């Protein structure tokens, strides 16, 4: 009987699960992920000589429901042609009957790995804004993601941002077959309860608020029965109040009190970054003055310098 080393055992565990790609244009290179519905493999496209990611259904080929869900996921993702959404190249059926689709191989780091508390705030908000653009695009096309979280956002080496895993996405509108999907902490209350059938874009607003909360505090929002959401400034007093207000408005338990969609939320964040007034935060008069002073600091400095010089000149000539 053959003796197998630990390295061989590990290798066999990996390759025995590789899909049979006979008859396709792909060669399997490695397994790079495993989700609830399918496994993701790194593969080489022989025709175009490039690497792609292949998502292959994990369930048995005769599981019609699982197959239908994955076909829907592939079609929906393919419909959303946006630089922030991973493009689908191809789809098909393997010799063993399992459905697969090929997509762009996303390189980079997940948002939760890419940012840390030491990263400058503006730098943390840059991928966030790009992510919001992609989600807003999906909303404009009537699609809600339903599982947004830092782990599903990839940041590339050149600053490109891609929203991944549209497996839970669906068209906005009431549905009879609605099921509870999402990740605790980022899942809107209505998404986790009996109101699941009426989930709309505001559920994604909640999740995006959760991601902002994570970017500000380094932790997901509290969840579960009786959980009280701590204000981000409780963890870090340096977090600007307007940004905290944007985050808390997005995380409002009542969907009616949140932003209507992610584009609205992103606009408020853009206003904050441009030192404009944000809608989520009613400023006090001195805060308005302080903000304007900060915004027009250069002009004010020049003006003050000019006045000072005029006064000095006046004093000099009089004396």
């Amino acid at each position, binding site marked *: 009987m053959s003796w197998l080393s630990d*390295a061989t*055992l590990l290798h*066999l565990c990996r390759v025995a699960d590789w899909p049979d*790609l006979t008859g396709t244009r792909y060669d399997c290179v490695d397994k790079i992920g495993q989700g609830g519905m399918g496994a993701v493999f790194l593969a080489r496209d022989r025709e175009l000589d490039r690497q792609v990611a292949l998502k292959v259904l994990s369930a048995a080929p005769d599981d019609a429901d699982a197959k239908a869900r994955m076909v829907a996921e592939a079609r929906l993702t393919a419909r959303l042609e946006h630089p922030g959404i991973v493009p689908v190249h191809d789809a098909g059926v393997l010799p063993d009957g399992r459905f697969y689709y090929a997509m762009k191989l996303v390189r980079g780091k997940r948002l939760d790995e890419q940012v840390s508390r030491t990263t400058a705030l503006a730098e943390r908000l840059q991928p966030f804004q790009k992510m919001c653009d992609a989600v807003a695009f999906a909303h404009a096309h009537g699609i809600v993601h339903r599982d947004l979280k830092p782990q599903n956002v990839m940041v590339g080496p050149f600053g490109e941002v891609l929203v991944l895993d549209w497996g839970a996405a669906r068209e906005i509108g009431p549905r009879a077959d609605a099921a509870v999907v999402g990740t605790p902490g980022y899942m809107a209350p209505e998404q986790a309860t009996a109101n699941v059938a009426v989930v709309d874009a505001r559920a994604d607003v909640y999740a995006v608020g959760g991601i902002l909360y994570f970017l500000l505090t380094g932790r997901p929002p509290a969840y579960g029965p009786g959980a009280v959401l701590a204000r981000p400034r409780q963890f870090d007093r340096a977090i600007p109040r307007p940004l905290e207000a944007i985050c808390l408005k997005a995380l409002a338990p009542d969907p009616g009190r949140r932003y209507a969609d992610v584009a609205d939320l992103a606009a408020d964040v853009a206003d904050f970054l441009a030192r404009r007034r944000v809608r989520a935060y009613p400023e006090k008069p001195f805060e308005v003055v302080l903000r304007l002073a900060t915004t027009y600091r250069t002009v004010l400095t020049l003006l003050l310098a000019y006045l000072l010089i005029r006064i000095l000149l006046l004093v000099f000539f009089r004396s």
Partner: protein
Amino acid sequence: MDHDTDLGGPAAAFPATRCTLVRAAGSADPAVRRQAAETLIAAYWKPVYKYIRVKWRSHNEDAKDLTQAFFAVAVEKGFFDPFDPAKARFRTFVRLCVDGFVANERRANTRLKRGGGGELLSLDFAAVEGELRRQESAAGADPDDFFRQEWVRELFAAAVDDLRRQCAGSGKELHFKLFERYDLDGPDAAEKLSYASLAEEFGLPQTQVTNYLAFARRLFRRLVLERLRTTTGSEDEFRDEVWRLFGGDVR
């Protein structure tokens, strides 16, 4: 194939119903009981021996006696009869039985000749000693992890032998050679093999190499699952083991 371990014939000869082996080990029919016991011994004797050697720090002679005696007494006294799949996986149950048996033996300070005296089973302990010397994962491992690793090693080694036989029987020796070169020898090679270098070495187009490898891997997986079915205690345990081994569902 080392026939020392081929105690009851190939596992494939056992009735192909799901997860029946463990139940059959407790059957009232002595013939069924014996065949089931032989298949279980074939799957577990090496992990048990290595486990006793490494985790109980037994001398090899003592470990040989304990392994022989454990299986002899297990068959005679029905150690596996109380197994309840709702409480533990069969592999863990076997390990706990070994722990209990070795502890009792040591307490009683009895050594030889358990099970009525004489060697009941013909097991190639010398080969296993050789394996133990080559293994890097023995020291410091968690007992359950170590036992599982050895059980997986035995399961895969048996499936590799099945694969070799099936490929030879169906004129697919080249499929097995590629599998052997890339998937069995490759991970230990100093230089990483590529499909392109394998294609050059065997004088085949690269697509043929990948297709042949895909065939061999698929068949290997099926053979592992067939063996796994017979040595797990329930359908749930079987599916759980498949997830742990391959990270995917049963296909």
